[in-house]
Each structure stands twice: as C-alpha cells, then as structure tokens.
C-alpha cells in the first residue's frame, strides 16, 4: 500500500514537471508574440496529422530508442558516454565503407546489407572502446575523451564525404552518392519507415531490458556503477565491465548509424548522427535510467521533433523551440525529483 502511495506521489511530481515545462515554453511563446495553443496544436497535428507524419515520427523513434538503449548500459556502469555522437557517426562510416566495397560485386544485396550493418555495429563498438581505453589506460575522463572522439569522428566523416568518397565530379554537403535502391532497408509502401528498423529497435529494447534487469552481468554492471571500489572488492573485474558497457553502447550506436545510412538517408551525410546521441542522453536522464519508460518517452521526443517542423512553415517560429521544450522538460522533471526528495524524504 505504501508502495503504491509513493508511486502515485512520484507520478504527481513528474506530471508537475511536465506542466512546468509546458508553462515555461508557453511563456517563451508569448514573449515572441506567438499563440501558444496554436503552436502546441501544430506540433500535435504535425506529428499525428496523417499516416506519413506518424511514419516520420517512427523514423526518428528508432534511432532515439536504440542510442538510449546503449546509453542505459553505460549509465548503469556509472559512465557518461558523451562520445555517443561519434559512435553513431563511425558506425555510419563503417556501414557506408563496407557497402561501397560490395556495390559492384554479385553478392546478394541482402547479404551486403547485413554485412554492412554488422560492420557499422563493429565501428560504433570500436569507437566506444577507444573512449573506454582512454579512460582505463590513459586516465582520461570519458566525458572529455568522448568529446574529443566526437570531434575526430565528425572531421573524419566530413573528410570522407568531401574527399575520398565524394561524388564523381562534385563534393557536396548532401553527402556521398546514394546507394542503389536494392541496397536500402526495405520500407513500407509509400513510406520512409522500414519495418526492419522497427524490429531492430524493439529487439534492442528487449535485449537491454533483460540484460540490465535480469542477468548477472547487468547486476554486476550496476554494482560497478554504484560503487566501483566495493564492486572490485566483491570480486568484479571493474575495468573490464566498464569496457564491456562501452562496447555494448557502441554496438547500439553503431547500429543506429547503420540504420541511418541503410534505412533513412541511403548514403553518408555530414550530420549523420542528427544529434540523436545528445537527445538520447536527455531521454536517459528523463526516464531515470529505467528501460521500462524508454519506448513511450522516446516516442514523445520523436513526435516533438517531427511536429516541430510545422512551426517555421506555418507560423514562422523556429523549430528549435521543440528542443527548448525537450530540454526544459528534462530540467523541470529533475528539479521536481529534487523537490520530491526534499519533502517526501531522502530514501
């Protein structure tokens, strides 16, 4: 009984946070002379108005869900994997690179797609492992290492797009030459959404949920995250576990990059990570690192992203406003958690 009471209080505070975030954005809207209700209605319409828009929301949902799944592994081990953006990018680079190798061969496209996506996962994992190695053996905090590796990944990506992998005759911001259609992840008729990518996302969520909730490995990761020294004394090889959590996160990030290449853009583009990594960090914080809430919250963020496109088209508002809404949501919900702890007691 007590438990349900705590839970409903908790929910009440979360909703309070949501209300405050909406209020905050409303005030911003009023300050720029826009009509808040109109803006919120447009976002809602823009995300759910027709099947195409709903499909677009899911196109964003898939990568958000996958990166956040990966981030849950590193957060559980007590790590701030800021390098996630770079890991997505390198995953995309590996996928593109391997696919390019097989373009002119007679190997079945299905096999090529599988190999390329596996290569993408490998690439993400390698890049994440690099952050792990820097931390373990170089003593570089994963936040700074990650930022540096993000920068390098971006430079590498742009360098390839404008250099070695540029289109014949031209180099352009639009990316590398698109892959022929039979190398694309198959999509629904008339939609950009691929059933396969949805499948990957759901599978990824299930795997990470059971990995973290139900396995010995997940529990050991949690122990490392909550008390590294104690975990070591209890016989857990700590740095190996941190490294593994980086690698797991990298696999997810790499898969995200691979899906962006094979399922969404069908080529490598300069901003292939689309900022999903940073958004994933926000989502992870918002769901308090619990996989159970991941799917709906990621869907909400994706809907905001897609719905926000309407703002500049229809009422000439900057669509970055939805970013402000997302950011303030995280902020206010964290604040409410703090307030809750203060009033309801610490433990």
């Amino acid at each position, binding site marked *: 009984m007590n438990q349900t009471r705590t839970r409903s209080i908790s929910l009440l505070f979360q909703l309070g946070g949501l209300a405050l975030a909406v209020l905050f954005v409303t005030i911003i809207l009023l300050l720029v002379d826009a009509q808040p209700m109109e803006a919120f209605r447009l976002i809602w319409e823009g995300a759910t108005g027709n099947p195409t828009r709903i499909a677009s929301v899911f196109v964003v949902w898939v990568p958000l869900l996958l990166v956040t799944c990966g981030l849950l592994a590193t957060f559980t081990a007590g790590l701030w994997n800021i390098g996630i953006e770079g890991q997505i990018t390198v995953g995309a680079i590996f996928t593109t690179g391997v696919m390019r190798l097989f373009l002119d061969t007679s190997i079945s496209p299905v096999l090529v797609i599988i190999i390329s996506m596996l290569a993408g996962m490998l690439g993400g994992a390698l890049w994440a492992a690099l952050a792990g190695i820097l931390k373990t053996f170089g003593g570089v905090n994963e936040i700074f290492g990650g930022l540096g590796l993000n920068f390098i990944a971006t430079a590498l990506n742009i360098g390839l797009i404008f250099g070695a992998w540029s289109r014949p005759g031209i180099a352009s911001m639009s990316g590398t030459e698109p892959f022929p259609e039979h190398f694309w992840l198959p999509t629904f008729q008339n939609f950009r959404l691929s059933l396969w990518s949805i499948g990957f996302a759901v599978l990824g969520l299930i795997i990470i949920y059971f990995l973290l909730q*139900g*396995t010995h490995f997940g529990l050991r990761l949690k122990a490392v995250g*909550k*008390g590294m020294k*104690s975990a070591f004394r209890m016989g857990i090889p700590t740095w190996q576990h941190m490294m593994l959590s980086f690698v797991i996160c990298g696999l997810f990030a790499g898969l995200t990059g691979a899906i962006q290449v094979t399922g969404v853009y069908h080529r490598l583009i300069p901003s292939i990570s689309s900022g999903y990594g940073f958004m994933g960090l926000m989502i992870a914080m918002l769901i308090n690192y619990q996989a159970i809430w991941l799917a709906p919250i990621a869907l909400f963020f994706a809907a905001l992203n897609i719905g926000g496109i309407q703002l500049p088209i229809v009422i000439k508002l900057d669509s970055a406003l939805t970013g402000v809404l997302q950011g303030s949501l995280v902020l206010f919900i964290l604040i409410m958690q703090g307030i809750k702890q203060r009033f309801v007691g610490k433990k």
Partner: protein
Amino acid sequence: MNVEFKNINKHFGPVHANVDINLNIQSGSIQGILGENGAGKSTLMKILSGFIQPDSGGIYLDGKAVLIDSPADAIKYGIGMLHQDPLDFPPMRLIENFIVGQRGGLVPSYKETIKEFKELQSRFGFSLNPEAYVDTLTVGERQQLEILRLLWMGASALILDEPTTGISAQQKEKLFAALKILAEQGKTIIFVSHKLEDVEILCSKVAILRKGYLVGEVPSPYDTDQLVEMMFGKVISLGDRNTVAQNDVVFELRDLFVEHYPLKIENVNFQLRSGEVIGLAGMEGSGQDVLLRACVGLLRPVSGKVIVKGKDLTNKNYLEFMQNEVSFLPASRLEEGLVPGLSLAEHFTIAGEEKKGLFIDKEYFREKAENMIDEYHIIGRSDSTVESLSGGNQQRAALALLKKSLSIILLEHPTRGLDIESAIYMWGKLKERCLQGCSIFFISGDLEEILQYSDRILVFFSGHVSPPLDAATTSLEQLGQLIGGKGWDQVFEIKENYESNANT
C-alpha cells in the same frame, strides 16, 4: 547555548527511528548520548544538524524554536557536527579547507588566516601543519581540523559522533582536554558514543537511547553495569579467547618492502598459520593498513614476496587473491565493501558462487538473502538497500557475504562503530571459521580487542613492524607503550632473535 529537543519523531519507512524524544542539554555541559548501533543516536544528531528533518517535534535553542533545514542552517545557528568520517575536501591543503568555511570576505588572506589558525590550535594543544594536504592526515588529525573549522565558523554547540574510533590514545587525550576547555568556555558539547569508558571519563551527564526511545538520563558518577543494562536491556561479557592455530603455514611474507608515502615498511618476514588470528596494532597511519593492502594485492610491493598456500602471488591483483580463497573486509564499508544502492539480495547474488547462468534466479537469491538475514541476525529485509542498514548490520552483512570456503580473511577495524553485542557476535562468527582452519589477519585500534582475540600480535610504529608477539604474554601496558613508540629496543632484540631462528 541551551539545546532542547521536544517530542522528536522520525520514521524511515517502517522503522521508527526516534520516538517522542525530549531532551534538554545545558549550555557549558558535556552531554553523552549512549546507545548501541541503530538505537537512534545518529538520527537524532542528524536532525539537530539539519541533515534530515523530523516528522514531528521541534528544536529549541536557548528557548527559541528554530527550523533547521540544512547543515548550512545549523551552522548559522551555531551548531556544528563532527562526523564519524569527517567531511572535508581531501585534495586541498589544510588552510584552504579552513578558508572554505570562512564567512564573508571575497579575498581570503592566507597569512592572516594561518596566523589565526595557529593561535586557535595552540589553545587546544593541536599541532597541525596548515600547509599539509588534507588527504595526508590521519583520522585523528582530520578530526582536530574539523573541530577547529567548526569553532572558526562560530559553532557554539558541537556534536561529536563516535569521535574516538580510529584515533590514538594520545589523540583521544588531546581531544578530551580540548572538549573540556570548550565546555568551560560555555560551549555545549554533545558526545555520541557507544564506548562506556569514554563517556564515563568525559561526560557530566549521559542520555541513553534504545530502539528509538530515550530510556533515561544518568548524571556522573556512573555505575557501569547500570549503563550497560540501560543500553542493551541485559548484561553481557566479552567472549573467550580460544586458540585453534595449527602448524601448517597458509600465508607468508618474505622480505616484503612496501612504500606508500610517507611510509616505508621494510623487511617484513612473517608466517601465518592455519586457524591463527593475528592482530595488527598501532596508531592510525603507522603502516598497518598499508601492509594489509600489500598482502592482498591492492598495493604493489617494491620488493619481496607474498606467498599464499605455497603459491607466489606477488604483484597479482586482488581478484587473483580472491580466487585463492583470500578475502579482505575494508574499514570503510560503504566505499570499499558494500555497494550503496544495491539491496541485500543483490549483494548475495553478486557474491554467490552458485547459480551463475546468464539470467538471475531472483527467487533463489531472495531466499538465500532471507536465510542469511536470519542466520546473521541482520536487521533489514532482502530488498533493503545496504545504506539503509545501521553500521552494525552493514558489518554483519559484509560478514555474511564472505565466501563459505576461505583460507584467509583480512579485516580492517572489524568492530569499529559496532556495539558490544555486535562485536561479540562478529568475533563469534570469525572464530567459527578459525575452527574450520581459516586464518585471520586484522587491524584494530582497540588494544583490548587485539589482546582478546589474537594469537599473535604485530605492532606498528611509523612504518616499523615488530616481530610477532605472543598475545598471551603481552600486557595492555606493554602494547600501549609500543604503539606509542616506547620500548622498541627490546622488540628489535626479539626481532633479531626471531629472524635468526627463522633463518636456521
């Protein structure tokens, strides 16, 4: 300052930690608060110092009701709390740490502050070097620093939570002298302890808590038996020493040389026999913790060998020691022993050697945890997080987590912060293991404990290690002198004899 608690109540989930506590503490007095672990002493003090808020009831300072919302609030009202593990900023120098607490003034004046610091500490006979780094200080020295800092910040009531654990006899003497000076100046001293002896010499009045209730208040002079009865509700005595040492050597150090700034521990030769208990005595920071860590691969020796059951494990890491049935229980339980945030059941899952498939058999480990909770008399549930347990129960849990088959257990202050009952229980459990051939190697600041439970004793003094002394023929006075650095000539004679014997 007159401090008064009125009808204080505090719940932690199902636990009623403070039940309707009424207590009035006069200005200029040294008030003892006695009670076993989990009696509610710490809760009451945390309420006074603003770390937690009571569910009901209030605090009155000099007759005025105050609302203490945070530690910062508390210090504003002149209440300073000295924690069991002093909270400070380790990477800083002493004087910087000191200045951090300073009120007002954008630009701190170092020279000025150093001068005032020296003046202040001379009044209490402390001799801290203001330029030293805080992390090089012993627990006792940190405590002195913390007292100075609280006074400097204007505290007129001082709360000391188990201040005598982990400090040397000399430091304790200094501390008590300082507290008496402060009381004479009209400061209110609240001295929280479970050590009867300390309370008896220091406090003018003592309040006894048991299971959340204030059982009663007794003025000095005290009747020890009465106090014990009030604390535990029954009279208990220390357990007996029983030697079960056998002859086979399970652990050996050969010419070990460990360096850990600022200590150098050289030329340690020593054998631990199966079933034997060896106590490491010495003032805090004399090198016993360094040696203990070197014995389990947590510190790398410069030279020499560490041999476990005939196997050379020098330079191997702790995990390999664990595989060779060696286990180490460190002093700071929540930092190095247990994982805060994880439940007891989760701890047993991690520590368990059985059911190691991919997925966790949660039901199995819940039952295991419950059995262990019963067996080790832990107050808590299988889903309680370890930090919600009291210190004594944490230690019981740590003990319960040790693997069944162990050859050597190394412990750092195994009973620090525990009430007598828990301490006796702890040793009972350890002795059971000795009977099964397990050897024990432990550090304690409590000389009586060392004499009581050890077969042999190693004494440390600023990096020097005595040869093993036979506990049965060593007196408390002798031991006290040795850890204070006296009578070592004699010891070195013994050592030479011991070594020449060992070599032949």
